[in-house]
């Protein structure tokens, strides 16, 4: 159905081709998952299928791409519109009209289908995607998951034989992601649609794939094969596969169910030497604070974490003294009852919608807290309230004794820093160096602070020269730059909104190490995230929000284990034992 024959793409001004020698074929009716680290050219391959590369992006495409027998060399994207449906990373930039029903019809109108056919297909698609209740809603008022479903629906109505999706679930909460994937599976099974999708969150999609195409490194040849075989060689893999590799299972399990059936032995092994392991510091089971602590929220944590971060690499240790210079209080001090932040009965009403209702929350130094909940539950609103961008309509917020929305920004950044969902918003300068200088000036820090922080956070600064434009950085590098900018003012409270969106596993691992060390250093960290694996690895405490209310607040292990949609894969596999991450299992087995 889709055929790449020795394709290489070179963008204008680039010395090297972005992808080289790509040669594969996707048979009709298969769901093929394209995986690989960031920046290996996944989006380029997806774009080449719809003809947007090179017709729209420019550059040179060598070789030949055919879709349903049509050569993209001679067919423009609009002439492929009836066979290929494309949904990009950001559904909002995909919408042409403003209501759901019109959006579903738009593609068919362009293709000139008869009105009665259009009407029938719109109704079918509304049912298929569960959008019937939303048909008259303006798209701008929909949640992220709903928008993603509308975007998929809008390319489905012309009945394309090929569907190309770029990270369809990365912005979605676990439940919404499952909804979208269930729809894709239905299309593949019932309609025989061929689907090619790229996704960083493999744990969500790998089980649906018929074949996996791996791009191991920039310029490396693409390999295509059955998922289990490919996962054995892939540089990126979901926790379930990692556990399989650790336990030496072959073939590798791809689903929680597969792994559970094989995990009996592992469970036993983990349970048996309990006596010997109990002698070891419980801190091994990072990052769960000791359950025995009477109140994990109030001060027990810093010491617990001192144990946790002991195995942190020497590399990350190196920059800690730098941060520690002005950070008060030092970690080793006895736990201070002083709270980093206190939120009392906060309510926020915006545009006639009650975004937050009566939220009570305390954050202690050195604590990492994950805010979870479905799209639109109020996570970002809460973060924005903490950082003073939104004035609460009721209740009080206090960050280090100050009310955020009444504190002038230059003072506030010394108390709380937020890395927004789109880190690019924070970066205004033309070069990384200028950005660092500006950050030093804003924070009244000694010149060079930000730059030093950055080179410590990103030790492998190959390619990260000072005069590169922030926009040309990879997602992970940009996030780290934004983090360095925020950390320049050394705020004791650090907030991150969806930090792992668009990050590959390697960048995510780096981020986890980084944040763990910051927490060990006494920073309180609040993450709003849909990424259950991230929360499992990092958070001491999870707060679940629903409709602007706190519905659960407790240690990570307790909250996520009890929730089927928020439990990480390892927890599901090894239940009823409470393990959260592969790293914990590895440490226990060692």
């Amino acid at each position, binding site marked *: 159905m889709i055929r790449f024959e020795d394709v290489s793409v070179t963008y204008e001004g680039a010395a090297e081709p972005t992808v080289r020698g790509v040669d594969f074929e996707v048979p009709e009716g298969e769901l093929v998952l394209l995986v690989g680290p960031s920046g290996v050219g996944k989006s380029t391959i997806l774009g080449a299928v719809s003809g*947007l590369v090179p*017709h729209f992006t420019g550059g040179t495409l060598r070789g030949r791409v055919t879709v349903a027998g049509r050569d993209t060399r001679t067919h423009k994207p609009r002439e492929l*519109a009836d066979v290929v449906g494309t949904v990009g990373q950001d559904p909002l930039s995909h919408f042409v009209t403003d209501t759901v*029903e019109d959006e579903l019809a738009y593609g068919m109108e362009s*293709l000139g289908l008869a009105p009665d056919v259009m009407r029938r297909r719109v109704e079918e698609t509304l049912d298929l995607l569960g959008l019937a209740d939303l048909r008259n809603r*303006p798209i701008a008022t929909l949640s992220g998951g709903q928008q993603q479903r509308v975007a998929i629906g809008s390319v489905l109505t012309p009945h394309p034989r090929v569907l190309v999706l770029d990270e369809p679930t990365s912005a979605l909460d676990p439940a919404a992601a499952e909804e979208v994937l269930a729809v894709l599976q239905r299309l593949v099974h019932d309609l025989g649609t061929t689907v090619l999708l790229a996704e960083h969150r493999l744990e969500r999609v790998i089980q649906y794939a018929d074949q996996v195409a791996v791009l191991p490194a920039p310029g490396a040849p693409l390999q295509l094969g059955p998922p289990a075989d490919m996962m054995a060689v892939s540089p990126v893999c979901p926790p379930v596969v990692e556990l399989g590799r650790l336990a030496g299972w072959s073939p590798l399990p791809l689903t929680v169910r597969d792994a559970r059936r094989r995990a009996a032995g592992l469970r036993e092994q983990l349970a048996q030497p309990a006596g010997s392991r109990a002698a070891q510091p419980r801190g091994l089971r990072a990052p769960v604070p000791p359950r025995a602590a009477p109140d994990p929220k109030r001060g027990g944590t810093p010491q617990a974490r001192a144990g946790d971060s002991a195995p942190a690499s020497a590399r990350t240790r190196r920059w800690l003294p730098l941060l520690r210079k002005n950070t008060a209080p030092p970690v080793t001090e006895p736990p201070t009852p002083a709270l980093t932040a206190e939120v009392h009965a906060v309510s926020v009403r915006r545009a006639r919608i009650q975004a937050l209702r009566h939220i009570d929350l305390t954050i202690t130094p050195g604590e990492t807290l994950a805010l979870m909940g479905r799209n639109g539950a109020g996570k970002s609103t809460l973060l924005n309230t903490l950082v003073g961008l939104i004035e609460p309509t009721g209740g009080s917020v206090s960050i280090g004794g100050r009310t955020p929305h009444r504190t002038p920004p230059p003072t506030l950044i010394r108390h709380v820093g937020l890395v927004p969902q789109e880190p690019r*918003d924070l970066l205004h300068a033309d070069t990384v160096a200028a950005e660092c200088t500006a950050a030093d000036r804003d924070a009244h820090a000694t010149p060079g602070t930000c730059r030093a922080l950055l080179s410590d956070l990103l030790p492998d600064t190959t390619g990260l020269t000072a005069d590169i434009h922030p926009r040309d950085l990879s997602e992970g590098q940009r996030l780290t730059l934004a983090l360095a900018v925020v950390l320049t003012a050394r705020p004791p409270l650090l907030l991150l909104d969806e930090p792992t969106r668009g990050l590959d596993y390697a960048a995510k691992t780096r981020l986890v190490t980084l944040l763990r060390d910051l927490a060990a250093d006494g920073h309180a960290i609040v993450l709003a995230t849909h990424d259950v694996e991230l929360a499992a690895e990092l958070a001491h405490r999870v707060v679940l929000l629903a409709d602007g209310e706190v519905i659960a607040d407790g240690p990570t292990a307790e909250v996520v284990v009890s929730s089927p949609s928020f439990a990480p894969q390892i927890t599901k596999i090894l239940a009823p034992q409470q393990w959260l991450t592969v790293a914990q299992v590895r440490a226990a087995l060692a």
Partner: protein
Amino acid sequence: MSDPTHPHRPAQLHPGAWWLWSLGLGTAATRTTNPLLLSLLIAASAYVVATCRSRTPGSHSYSAFLKLALAVLLIRLVFAVALGSPVPGTHVLVTLPELPLPHWAQGIRLGGRVTAESLLFAFYDGLKLAALLVCVGAANALANPSRLLKSLPGALYETGVAVVVALTFAPNLIADVQRLRAARRLRGRPDSGIRGLLQVGLPVLEGALERSVALAAAMDARGYGRTAEVPPAVRRTTAALTLGGLLGVCAGTYGLLTAEGGTYGLPLLLAGVAAALAGLRLGGRRSLRTRYRPDRWDARAWLVAGSGAAVAALLTVAADADPAALLPGVVPLVAPTLPLWPAAAVLLALLPALLAPKEPS
């Protein structure tokens, strides 16, 4: 939000009907300066907007238009106070210090006497403009301009989409500015003031441009701009008809406006219009587009459009018949009276509130 238990598309009135209704009201507003009539007109249109508008993002623009109208009225008054007014008046309210200007600026006066007459005149004049703006705002709130697009002839559709996409540029830009000013606050820089606004300017434009490119890519991939093969003869005829038609319209208009062209002006204009329309229709053959559930021009649409036209026509007639009531003088100062028949005519504008389908609440 529409009611989820009411899955049917609300029977919408043809957007053209709303635009004709609003334009009718706007025309009526230009026929009078009577503040009572104008207020009645604004109230009538506001009532219709309040009862008939749908819950779309565009419908929230009405309050923006109201604010704009108020601003126009205030600016008109400020100008009348600061720059004086040609209206002679005897009731001096206050005398501002007058700024002496050099002789080459003789026609301009800064400061000086402010009379009640000049203020009142400026108020009447400003209110007329404000009423016009409110009418345009009503059309915007009642009928999304992009819905009007669906009724354009096929040949113009693509241009229309481009215009609508360009129009959504401004709201997106405002959202971007707000987001980036928030980001400035996160960097510890003051988020207000002109400097703050200027510094986010470049990133905002970059963001808007990137979004436009992404949208263009999405539209292309979804088949925007697909064309059908048409025989060269048809293509050539289309070009000839359109060009010839436009030339005819130009020449016809010239003929109508000059003194000696009275004989050939009107026929030439009509022929030109006919040729241009035929060209458009033929040009539509190149476009493959079909329309999904187009709005129908039904009896209600006729009545709504008709009520607007009736208000315009009746006030025009009234302005000729009774100029004293519709254009109340300010010298000497008199209290305006509400002329009964024109007021009744304005109330005709309320007809759509009874006719138009209402959003399920």
